[in-house]
Structures are given as C-alpha cells and as structure tokens.
C-alpha cells in the first residue's frame, strides 16, 4: 500500500486540492493501484500548492503544484515510487525553502493527518503537558518567563509576566482565551497551525490552564476560517474522548474545559478587550485599561488572553525546556518568528526562522521577488496597521525593537509585497477607509479621525489645496496616534505616514 498526502489546508483547497484528491482515488482505482490518500496539513509552501507527497522507501517525495488533470500523467511516471516528472520537487525535506527554516511551532505542520492524535503523540505531542502535570503552577509560569516568549499577536508583551499576574490574582473562576481572530491581511500563520497541528494549540492552552489555575478556555476564532473551525472542533472531541481535556486530565485530577467560539467579521475583535466583550455576547467595544484582562477579563474574571502561536509555543517550551527557546533569536526577541510572505511575491508561504533575518533575505531569497516580475516598490509589514517600508529599510533585522525604532512594527509577522505599479496614495487612503469601516466607535480620534482621513487624502489626491491638506493629514495622524484608545486608531497613522514620507511622489501627481 502506498500512502499519498494531499493537504486539506484552506490555501491548498483554494487551488484545487480536493479535486486532486478525488482524481488520485479515482485514477488509483482505475489502475488497480493500492493507494491510500491521507489529507495532511500544509507545509506552508503555498506557491507549490496543491503539493502532494508520496511516501517511498527513501522518504517523502513531493510534486507540485499539481492539478487534477496532472494525475494520470503522474501515475504514468510512476510517481508512487518517486518517479521523474516535470512537477517532481525531490525529497520534501530537501526543498530549499523548507530546509533552511527553523521549524519550532511548525515542525509538525504538513507531516501527518492533523486530526490524528496518534500522529501528534508520535511527534513529541503532549510531552509538554506531561511535564506540566508534574509541576506547580508557579513552576510552569517560571518556565514561560525564562523562555523570553513574547506575545505573537502583535503587541509582543512578555507572556510570563501576563501569566504571573493571572496566577497572583485571586479568583473563583479564571479563564484562558485564545485570540484566533487573525484579521491582518497578509497573515495566515494561526490558520495554518490550527489546520495543520490543532493539538499543539489545545495542549498549550491546557498547560496555560494548569499554570494559572483556570478551568475554562475559549478559542475565539474568526468566522472567515471555516476549515479551521471544523478541524478544531473535531480535534477537541478527540482530545476529550482520550482524556486530554475535561474534569480529570490524564487521571491527574486536574480540570480544563475548552470550546471554540466564532467571531462575526469584525476586525476590531482581534484587539483583546474588544474580543472579550464579543465573547460575552456584546458589541466588540474596546475597553479602557486598566483594569488589565489579567485582573479583570472575561466576565470580569482574571483571564490569560494570548494569540494562537503564543499559546501553542508554550507546548514546545514545556517539552524542550525554557533554555532551548531562550537560546534562539536576538536581543529581546527570543525564539522563532513565523513570517508570512504574501501579496505580490513569487514564492509566498510560511517561513519560520529565529528572529534576526532581514526583510530583504525573506522577500528576495525566499520570496524570489514579485509574482509579476516587476521591481518591488513597497513592503507592508504587520498588517493594515503596519508601515509601508521603502527599499532603504529592507535590511532591518526582524526584531521587535529594530522595527519599533523606525516607526514600524513586526506585529503578527505578515509581510505583503507590492510591485512598482502600486499607487501609495491609494494605499494610504485604504488604511483610513479600513479604520473607518472597522472602528468600534468608542473613541473620537478613531471614529471621526478615520472618516476625516479619507476626506483629506481624497482632497490631496484630487489636488485640492494639497500643501495645506498634507499638513492637516499630519495633524490628524498626531491626534489619532496620541488620542485613540487602542491600536486601531493609534496605529492607522503608521501606514499613512510611511506612505507620505517615503513615497511623496505619489501624493504630488493628481490621481483623480
């Protein structure tokens, strides 16, 4: 029997993976070949999707991008034994893009069936939880503290400090909330992890519960991720059935329940306090801080709220030890950062590396330049609230502090490439338009500022009192940056200001 892997990941399916799987089964039956099709997660080499892999005596051999029409020719070429074919990519592990990465969070992604708990355990899964069950809450928090892990959602707050606060705050009920509202354009690391390795997140959240004494967890998942929802729900059911969740985890007497809640298309709910209001069944309005969610969070109780990758990483830290993680990275940015290469790029996908690589290495060495073949003009890093970086900033190391020092942010690690056809005044306008659309409306600088921002940029683009309006735009950005309640209004000026500062020529020629 020959095992062929076809990813069930959203990106692979968006490019026809389901049809490929169907064709493989049909063609194998027609030829009487003994082939088992396994729907694995994606390796994150999205430009090669659908990338199928066949298990041979020499290891796994990859082919891609495969369309359903290629399937008969692949059989003709004896691909089930690693036969030569124009789509052959050689051994999966030897593909440069993958080989040169440092996969910590994504070590298991794409290897097996994401729903197989056996596959998970065979690849070091649930060893972190085993260790955690032998520790006190304080010892677990200490491990996270020493690892240097910082929040991967964007704000990069030290995770251990957040957990210590929750541990130290008395409460009859505490919660673990996973922020899986990955709304930044150009990001898909959370989705990939949830679709390819859901147990890692479940394990990390369970450890978090043990650490701070929380018995209930929620994964707040955006509604735009239906495949991740289905996979998470099935994985949760299996984890419950096998005793990894519930009132008596692995017969330890420890209790942790976990469920998925689905968002409803509001970008602002990625902001942690807005997310908590949404989980409570309300409009996703941003809360003023303090009180911090760690003290007064979900339903007013002490709450750990962390991003998907942050929580998943805890499973690795507990398994391999804090020192392993702490040894990776540069400066105060420890561990690895999964970068998501997106937009107009030839080889888009997920690249997990220790902190410190440069943007240029990513977009040129990994990305291979633009998909259009034209020169790169601007790179937006960190989602819709991140700055547009011009060429002279592409040698910045990927490090939270290095980015912050130039008025940019690494955020959740989304890297969106634009070629030289981009109109940066249009991008600046979009930043304001998006803020106007997604503002929760609680604070005036964001609610009104974004609307006025669109108007002012329209005036500049239409050449109406351009110089005066450029000054007005800067003042408006000051007001939003300094006066907004959260990052939505406070950071929308980042892409706007960077566009004006580094691409002034786009604001000088009347565009319409």
């Amino acid at each position, binding site marked *: 029997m020959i095992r062929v892997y076809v990813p069930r990941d959203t990106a692979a399916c968006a490019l026809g993976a389901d049809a490929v799987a169907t064709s493989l089964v049909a063609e194998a039956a027609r030829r009487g070949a003994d082939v088992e099709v396994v729907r694995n997660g994606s390796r994150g080499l999205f*430009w090669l999707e659908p990338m199928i892999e066949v298990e041979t005596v020499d290891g796994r051999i990859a082919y891609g991008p495969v369309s359903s029409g290629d399937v008969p020719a692949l059989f003709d070429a004896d691909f089930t034994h690693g036969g030569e074919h124009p789509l052959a990519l050689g051994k999966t592990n030897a593909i440069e893009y993958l080989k040169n990465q440092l996969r910590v969070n994504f070590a298991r992604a794409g290897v097996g069936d994401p729903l197989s708990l056996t596959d998970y355990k065979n690849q070091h899964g649930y060893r972190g939880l085993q260790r955690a069950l032998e520790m006190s809450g304080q010892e677990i928090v200490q491990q996270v503290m020493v690892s240097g892990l910082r929040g991967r959602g964007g704000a990069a707050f030290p995770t251990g400090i957040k957990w210590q606060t929750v541990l130290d705050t008395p409460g009859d009920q505490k919660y673990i909330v996973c922020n899986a509202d990955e709304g*930044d*354009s*150009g*990001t898909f690391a959370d989705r990939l992890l949830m679709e390819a390795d859901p147990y890692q997140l479940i394990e990390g959240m369970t450890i978090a519960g043990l650490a701070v004494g929380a018995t209930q967890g929620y994964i707040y998942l955006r509604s*735009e991720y239906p495949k991740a929802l289905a996979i998470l729900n099935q994985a949760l059911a299996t984890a419950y059935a096998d005793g990894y969740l519930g009132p008596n985890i692995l017969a330890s007497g420890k209790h942790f329940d976990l469920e998925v809640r689905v968002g409803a298309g509001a970008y602002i709910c990625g902001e942690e306090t807005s997310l908590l209001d949404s989980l409570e069944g309300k409009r*996703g309005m941003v809360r003023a801080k303090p009180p911090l969610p760690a003290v007064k969070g979900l339903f007013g109780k002490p709450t750990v709220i962390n991003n998907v990758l942050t929580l998943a990483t805890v499973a690795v830290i507990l398994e391999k030890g804090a020192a392993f993680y702490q040894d990776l990275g540069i400066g105060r940015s420890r561990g690895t950062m999964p970068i998501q290469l997106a*937009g107009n790029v030839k080889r888009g*996908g997920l690249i997990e590396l220790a902190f410190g690589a440069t943007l240029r290495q990513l977009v040129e060495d990994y990305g291979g330049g633009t998909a259009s073949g034209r020169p790169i003009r601007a790179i937006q890093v960190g989602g819709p609230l991140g700055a547009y970086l011009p060429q002279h900033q592409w040698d910045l190391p990927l490090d939270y502090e290095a980015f912050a020092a130039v008025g940019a942010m690494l955020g959740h690690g989304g890297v*969106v490439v634009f070629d030289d056809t981009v109109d940066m005044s249009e991008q600046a306008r979009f930043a304001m338009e998006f803020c106007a659309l997604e503002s929760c409306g609680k604070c005036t600088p964001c609610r009104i500022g974004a609307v006025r921002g669109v108007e002012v940029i329209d005036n500049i683009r239409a050449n109406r009192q351009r110089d005066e309006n450029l000054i007005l735009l800067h003042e408006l950005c000051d007001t939003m940056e300094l006066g907004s309640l959260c990052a939505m209004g406070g950071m929308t000026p980042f892409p706007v200001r960077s566009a004006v500062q580094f691409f002034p020529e786009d604001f000088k020629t009347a565009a319409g």
Partner: protein
Amino acid sequence: MQLQQDKNVNTGDGCRTAAEIVSGMKQLPGALLPVLHRVQEIFGYIPPATVPTIAEGLNLSRAEVHGVISFYHHFRTEPTGRHVIQLCRAEACQAVGARQLEKHITTALDIAVGDTTESGDVTLLPVYCLGNCACGPSLQVDEEIYGRVTPERFDALLNDLGAGQ
C-alpha cells in the same frame, strides 16, 4: 426580485424556531453570538421578526440585540441571493490585482459590492481577508474559497453557478 426566503420567516414559525434555538443555547455564557450564528445558519439571515424572541429568551433588550447584529459585518438582516460571493478587498489581494478584479466582477454582475443581482442569483459581499494571502486575489463562493482568481477564472466560476448573463 426573487430572493431566497424561508417561507416560515414572516409567520409565527420563524419565531418558534428562533425560540427553540434560544432555549437550547441560553445556558451558554455569552450566548448571544452563538444564537445569532445559528439563526443565520438556518434562515440565511437574521429575520428582524426573530429579534424580540431572541431578546426575551436571553433576558436582553431588543436594542441590545439589534446593537449586536448591526455591529458585526457577518450578520445580515436581509436575505441574500441564491449564491453569495465574498470578494477579498484587503492589502495582500490588492497587491495582486483585487481592485481590477472587483471592477470586472461588478461590471459582469452589474451590481455594486453589497448588492444582489436583479435575478436574485448572486449577492456580492466584501470580505477583509480570507487568510489566503500568498495566493490572491481570493474570493469565496458560498462555502468554497478560490485563490489566484483572474477575471477569466471568475467568469468560469460564475458560469459553473449557472448564474452567468
């Protein structure tokens, strides 16, 4: 305009179904969003006639329920066409031609984003990121997400829906 409309919505049956949903879920902490998701799953939208039932069942005011429905882009208070196309408008897709694709689609369907075609075949909605940012432009047709959608590919998809001009 022929819209997909559950025949029970405007009669008492719609509210009875909403009442059943509420009574089955009201013990959940923060039950309103899960209830609204379920109502929309069943009716295709949230019929305004169900709002008082939902409010009463969850011990909320109608204004609170309305406030939540109107806050979230995902919740709709009107029926959609037979097919829903969600077009990604965010930056990563913009970088690979989403704006041009949007022009093509609105011309092909002869509607603006947010509207339903006169035949009731297609509702076109904006979405800000489907998480398929390395393979844009992306759009979703009913439950399926498609990547690298060119104008030609869109025409073929529309044709497959039997909703072409």
